[in-house]
């Protein structure tokens, strides 16, 4: 009896000691935050009614490596400069507003992480490239899941390395008449990853200058005033899975080398004599598996050398390929040409150093007696009428006229003026098996 009471006593004591531990909760601390499974660490919270009401003040107070949470509200603070490594997280789309006067947010430190911010209404200037977000001379930034609306330039990187720019919405209100800035502008930067961004309504959607060793993947650049993608003086970049649609013209690759453009779509680029892809001074690059659909000119090449263009689909364009005499040693292989008004035009009768090999041409009228899938006679894709057009563009009015047909028929019978060696010796008889309708890889980005 005594023993039982003694044991019970200890058990009660034990339970009494352990109970407070079981039911205790951490004291509610307004400075701590809970955010979708992210590691909790002390953060500075900014909100219109909080002790800290401005991001500028939070930045002044926060130690390096801090997390700054900015809650929903309107923040008009002039230019905000981030000059230390911090993580700035927006909750409920806090709006940083330049009120049409200034550069909104500028990052000048390494290791800055920005997410969930709404940045809008930057100023506009003839002298300075004012942007919603500017990152300069910084490394290892992450700009992810932000919205940039109605800015002059959207996201502007200058002399920046090793950054990730992903899942941002960048929408401007540029018109062709008014002076406008680019959506995502990368200048003098290296090793940038640009993924799944959606850019509309700027001058050039994506603009790269002196960009190297970077990857541009699965972005949508559409309804911009000028180019969907514009690359100058750049090298060793990789562009894949991007959609460039309904811009004035699709993509410009200029004064660049060793680019790889794979599996992109260039659609509905509608400017008169504007291009799906303009290649000027582009060397040693690969352009593969792209879809050129419904462009005035799908691909224009001038002073472009040693490029490999394979497995592209040229469908329903005015001119599929306009290649100038100073473009040399380019290889066109395994491409698909369908319902283009002109497959290939050039501006010279001289012998071409470019090779066309194993492409499918819907205009091919040859035969395949040995059933090897390859036509037994060559296909000459340059029509005399096309050559005439290079010299006299206004002659387009004669397209599909009996005169033009007669001209082409005469040239085919007695070839004199079209470059004779610009021929596909092995044209495909049947459409290649890979040429099924392409689907948008990044259908989730709208």
């Amino acid at each position, binding site marked *: 009896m005594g023993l039982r009471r003694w044991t019970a006593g200890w058990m009660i004591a034990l339970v009494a000691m352990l109970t407070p531990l079981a039911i205790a909760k951490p004291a509610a601390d307004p400075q701590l935050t809970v955010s979708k499974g992210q590691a909790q660490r002390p953060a500075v919270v900014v909100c219109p009614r909080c002790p800290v009401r401005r991001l500028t003040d939070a930045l002044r107070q926060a130690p390096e490596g801090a997390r700054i949470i900015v809650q929903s509200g309107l923040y008009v603070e002039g230019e905000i400069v981030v000059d230390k490594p911090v993580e700035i997280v927006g909750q409920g789309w806090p709006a940083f507003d330049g009120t049409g006067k200034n550069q909104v947010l500028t990052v000048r430190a390494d290791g800055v992480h920005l997410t969930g911010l709404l940045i809008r209404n930057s100023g506009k200037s*003839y*002298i300075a*490239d004012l942007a919603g977000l500017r990152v300069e001379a910084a490394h290892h930034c992450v700009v992810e899941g932000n919205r940039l609306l109605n800015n002059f330039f959207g996201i502007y990187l200058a*002399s920046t390395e090793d950054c990730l720019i992903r899942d941002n919405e960048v929408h401007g209100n540029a018109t*062709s*008449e008014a*002076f*406008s800035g680019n959506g995502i502008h990368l*200048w*003098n930067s290296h090793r940038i990853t640009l993924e799944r961004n959606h850019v509309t309504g700027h*001058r050039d959607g994506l603009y790269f*200058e*002196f960009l*190297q060793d970077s990857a541009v993947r699965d972005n949508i650049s559409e309804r911009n*005033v*000028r*180019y969907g993608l514009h690359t*100058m*003086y*750049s*090298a060793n970049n990789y562009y894949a899975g991007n959609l460039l649609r309904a811009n*004035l*013209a699709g993509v*410009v690759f*200029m*004064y660049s*080398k060793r680019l790889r453009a794979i599996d992109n779509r260039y659609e509905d680029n509608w*400017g*008169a*004599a*504007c*291009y799906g892809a*303009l290649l*000027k*001074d582009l060397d040693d690059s690969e352009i593969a598996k792209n879809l050129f659909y419904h462009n005035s000119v799908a691909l*224009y090449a*001038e*002073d472009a050398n040693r490029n490999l263009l394979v497995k592209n689909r040229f469908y329903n364009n005015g001119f599929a390929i306009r290649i100038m005499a100073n473009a040399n040693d380019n290889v066109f292989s395994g491409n698909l040409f369908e319902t283009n008004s002109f497959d290939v035009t050039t501006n010279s009768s001289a012998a071409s150093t470019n090779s066309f090999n194993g492409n499918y041409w819907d205009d091919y009228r040859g035969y395949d007696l040995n059933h090897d899938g390859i036509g037994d006679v060559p296909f000459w894709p340059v029509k005399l009428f096309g050559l005439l057009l290079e010299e006299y*563009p*206004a002659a387009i009015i004669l397209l599909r006229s009996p005169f033009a047909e007669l001209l082409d028929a005469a040239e085919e019978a007695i070839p004199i003026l079209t470059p004779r060696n610009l021929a596909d010796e092995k044209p495909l008889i049947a459409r290649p098996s890979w040429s099924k309708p392409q689907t948008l890889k990044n259908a989730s980005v709208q």
Partner: protein
Amino acid sequence: MVVVEGCNPAPPYPIHFGGVECAYCHMVVSDPRFAAELVTKKGRVYYFDSIECLASFVAESQVPQADVHSMWVSDFQHPEHLIPAPSAFYLKASRLHSPMRRNFIAFSHSADRTQALATLGGTQMSWEEVLQLQRTHSRANTTLRAS
């Protein structure tokens, strides 16, 4: 595509920004601060998106000198207002980016240029000097480093 201007008044002709392409580099002319124009004696108009493109075009005699009627550049002080190229005052600005990155801008008055020099930095030049610079600037000189 270049449209032949028939029954128009005298040059310079207004530039349709966003609607014409540069005769030299084929980019769409869209920035009124740098745009330029060349008119031939037959009335054909060539547009340029930058002064350096006009200068390169002229330096390479893409149109024979004898056929050129007039050349025009944008007055940086009044964009969209075109002034005669040979008599304009040029600045190769250090703190401004032109479409092909040669950063030439033009002024109708020398005083405007001096004022711009203070904000933008750079080198003052004449049309002949601009032409000469573009003549020597060739593909071989293009490096992949930002200036």
